[in-house]
């Protein structure tokens, strides 16, 4: 019945519903694109390991460096990691990493591999996958073996010299390749405090051998050489990460009392921050989109008011044959609800369509989640209900005699 009268005024119904269509479309696009961006950010951060806490060395100013030298504190050491592991039970694994300022010989121009020295647990904590061979093990570190593990791109760049057993020259030393890393999928654009390293262009050496690579040892260089670039601590469960980070901070504060030569970063914390900012942003966009829904609702109210005054006579007839106020109220509410629901569904269809079109232009994928579909549907139904209430109420409270007289 409600459908019949809406069908009767096809063009009018369609036009009045346009506001809702666009509002819903905006909401669904915003939610989907936002959701997609969120998933992308989460994936990037998760790659760093949500169970990990990073301690990174910070470049000191000259003045601070002088102070540091006086107090004989040389940045991050493996000893720090050991102390943290002993002092904090939730830390189950630790690894150190040091970026070496040395160059690899024999690779073509277009690739300049980064050389780092690492402890054996590094591969496990960051879940690096070995394509062939093995990772650097404890023996390599203990015995200062001259071995290395190379990234996927380094291996291809080296060509026939890039296989297991071949010799790689770093500065003046020769290292035997014992393992090649699986191809690592790099993220499109890593921004933020810490980002996942590009392991494809890396040469990994056992921790300790870097001492030989130095040609000249000055006192200053030695002090800098002591410091690790990064300590990575793995926590037993993600729930413990935030508390553990605090404990680590306290332990580090005791070991390095004077100078803050490091920063503690946990990906989980970043994750939470990112979530928060993303939430704020999409809330802001949603507010804008809901303005258009409100405008759409006003359109519906307008058209319903016109319908009610146009169908005064019908209301009178219905009242005369026994309809009560609630019957009339529901009749017009239903019409408004159908109108907006239809608008909502059309909006969702167009929204999904435009998301597919948009996906050619935005770098990340958008995720059409259930949330992205249901929120606009619920919002549009609510708008319909709200904007339908006043016209329906005025219809219901019409004096039947007055209505019949026309």
């Amino acid at each position, binding site marked *: 019945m409600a459908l019949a009268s809406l069908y009767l005024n096809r063009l009018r119904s369609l036009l009045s519903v346009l506001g809702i269509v666009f509002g819903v479309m905006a909401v669904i696009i915003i939610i989907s694109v936002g959701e997609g961006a969120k998933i992308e950010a989460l994936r990037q951060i998760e790659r760093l390991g949500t169970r990990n806490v990073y301690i990174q060395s910070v470049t000191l100013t000259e003045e601070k460096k002088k102070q540091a030298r006086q107090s004989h504190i040389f940045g991050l050491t493996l000893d720090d990691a050991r102390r943290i592991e002993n002092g904090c039970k939730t830390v189950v694994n630790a690894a150190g990493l040091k970026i070496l300022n040395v160059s690899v010989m024999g690779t073509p121009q277009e690739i300049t591999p980064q050389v780092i020295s690492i402890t054996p647990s590094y591969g496990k904590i960051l879940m690096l996958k070995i394509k062939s061979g093995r990772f650097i093990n404890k023996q390599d570190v203990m015995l200062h073996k001259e071995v290395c593990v190379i990234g996927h791109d380094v291996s291809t760049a080296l060509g026939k010299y890039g296989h297991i057993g071949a010799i790689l020259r770093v500065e003046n030393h020769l290292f035997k390749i014992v393992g090649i890393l699986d191809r690592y999928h790099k993220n499109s654009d890593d921004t933020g405090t810490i980002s996942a390293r590009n392991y494809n262009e890396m040469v990994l050496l056992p921790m300790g051998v870097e001492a030989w690579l130095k040609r000249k040892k000055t006192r200053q260089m030695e002090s800098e050489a002591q410091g690790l670039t990064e300590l990575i601590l793995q926590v037993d469960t993600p729930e413990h990460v935030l508390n553990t980070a605090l404990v680590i901070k306290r332990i580090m504060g005791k070991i390095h009392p004077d100078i803050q030569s490091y920063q503690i970063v946990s990906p989980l914390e970043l994750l939470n921050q990112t979530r928060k900012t993303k939430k704020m942003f999409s809330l802001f966009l949603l507010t804008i989109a809901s303005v258009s829904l409100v405008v759409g609702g006003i359109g519906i109210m307008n058209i319903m008011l016109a319908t009610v005054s146009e169908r005064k006579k019908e209301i009178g007839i219905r009242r*005369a*044959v*026994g*309809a*009560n106020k609630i*019957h009339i109220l529901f009749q017009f509410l239903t019409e408004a609800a159908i109108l907006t629901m239809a608008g909502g569904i059309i909006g969702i269809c167009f929204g999904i369509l435009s998301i597919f079109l948009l996906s050619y232009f935005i770098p990340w994928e958008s995720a059409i989640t259930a949330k992205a579909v249901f929120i606009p549907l619920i919002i549009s139904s609510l708008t319909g209900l709200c904007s339908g209430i006043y016209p329906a109420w005025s219809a219901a409270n019409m004096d*039947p005699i007055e209505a019949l007289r026309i």
Partner: protein
Amino acid sequence: MSDLVSLKDISKTYPLGQAFVPVLKNLDFHLNEGEFAAIMGPSGSGKSTLLNVMGCLDRPTSGTYHLDGEDVSKLSDGQLSAVRSVKIGFIFQQFNLIQHFSVQENVSMPFLYSHISPQLACKKSLQAIEKVGLSHRINHKPFELSGGEMQRVAIARVMATSPKLILADEPTGNLDSKTGERIMDLISELNNLGTTIVVVTHDLHVASRAHTIYTMKDGHFV
């Protein structure tokens, strides 16, 4: 026979600006079940207001109204609607059909507001349409019908719910005399089947069909 309609000391006043205009003045009116009454009188004498009060569309300002033994003068709007739905049928001068509904939809429309199964509603409405001789027109819209046919649809709408009281306000007012005759035939037939009928009219010829003719002037019977 018991009183179907019993109006006692009924007054109705309408506010007009600051003043109140009395339309019905201490009116008494009784109708037995199965009676056929015609109410005549000049315009503004309160005929239509009386009909509205009797039809439970309007409540009297004072006085009591018993319909079928029930005091309806104090009922709420919702309860009055229920009374209208079950006990009262209206026939209007303007036919008052819903333009975008077909004949059958118009006739079965009252059943939307009573607790009757759709199958039964359909059956009853089809029977009523057959009785007024419009079976060949069930899918037509009102604007495709002649005036007489439209009024027959309106009568079918009343018949379908089989009310105790039928109130007709100038049922032949918009029809030529010949068609009006046929409409009055139908109404008389309904009365023969036991339905109480009140017709408001200017037309003496129409009024002559009734058992009793009442004449109103300035808000009361003369």
